[in-house]
């Protein structure tokens, strides 16, 4: 038993509260919406919209979360969880990139049946992979609402295929839904943690 085991619930509670600001959800929602727009308009240049929102994550945390919630450096399990999250997300992004590259390279050489399967079920495979990524993120970060996003991803994906709705449009709708959840969480966070009247440290 480590020295801090008795207080790990406190650290866990603080860690969870720190991530209830909805910023990560809004970034994810904006990224998914951007990816959907790229699919809808079939414009490779629009791919920038899918990753650009993530550039705002740290500045928003610094300017919205920290002044209200306070600044904290986690240690032990929480710090480990943050590191693992970043590593897993990076690993999955690299995996998807390599998978895409390999598929592109071998596509012409694989059996026609397999080509047909990929053509027919590509969107479902992509949706399944995205849902898996979100479920892994939920498990590692402990943010259980990411399981909901994983389920929503599958539902939107399957509904799009069954109803023959444009997959780009369904992805945009999914992104906007996640963004709306994030915006709701942010509004709740701003009410729970108003800006302190005095600047940090002045009370000392």
């Amino acid at each position: 038993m480590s020295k801090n085991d008795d207080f790990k619930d406190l650290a866990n509670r603080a860690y969870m509260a720190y991530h209830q600001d909805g910023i990560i959800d809004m970034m994810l929602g904006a990224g998914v919406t951007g990816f959907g727009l790229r699919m809808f308009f079939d414009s490779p240049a629009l791919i920038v919209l899918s990753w650009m929102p993530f550039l705002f994550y740290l500045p928003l945390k610094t300017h919205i979360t920290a002044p209200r919630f306070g600044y904290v450096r986690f240690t032990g399990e929480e710090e480990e969880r943050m590191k693992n999250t970043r590593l897993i997300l990076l690993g999955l992004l690299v995996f998807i990139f390599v998978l895409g590259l390999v598929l592109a390279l071998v596509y012409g050489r694989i059996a026609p049946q397999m080509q047909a399967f990929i053509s027919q079920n590509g969107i479902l495979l992509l949706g399944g992979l995205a849902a898996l990524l979100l479920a892994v993120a939920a498990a590692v970060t402990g943010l259980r609402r990411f399981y909901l996003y994983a389920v929503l991803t599958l539902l939107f994906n399957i509904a799009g295929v069954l109803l023959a709705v444009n997959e780009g449009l369904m992805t945009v709708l999914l992104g906007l839904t996640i963004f709306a959840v994030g915006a709701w969480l942010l509004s709740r966070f701003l009410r729970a943690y108003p800006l302190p009247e005095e600047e940090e440290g002045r009370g000392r």
Partner: protein
Amino acid sequence: MAGESLQEPGVQPIADIDRMIHAPARLMILAFLSAVDSADFTFLLNQTGLTRGNLSSHLQKLEEAGYISVQKEFVDRIPRTLIRLTAEGREAIQTYKETMRQVVDELLG
């Protein structure tokens, strides 16, 4: 147990309780600080629910006792007053936890 003095073995742990830590507000502050690496004033204010004046006064006492250190640091180019447990504070809270366990064990048999 009537007439038993604090020097007698049965209740000795009670006399060993560190009064600097035993105050609920200071215990809360130290508990949070022992669960994280470091935190600023606003974080402790939100987590403990103390008033600014109260928190400030308890932090001052803990700093004077050598249990916490208060340092100004630049984090992401923003100056922050970071509060962390010192080695002495970490040891003191560990001793406090062990003493409290002994007290509970003694009292509940």
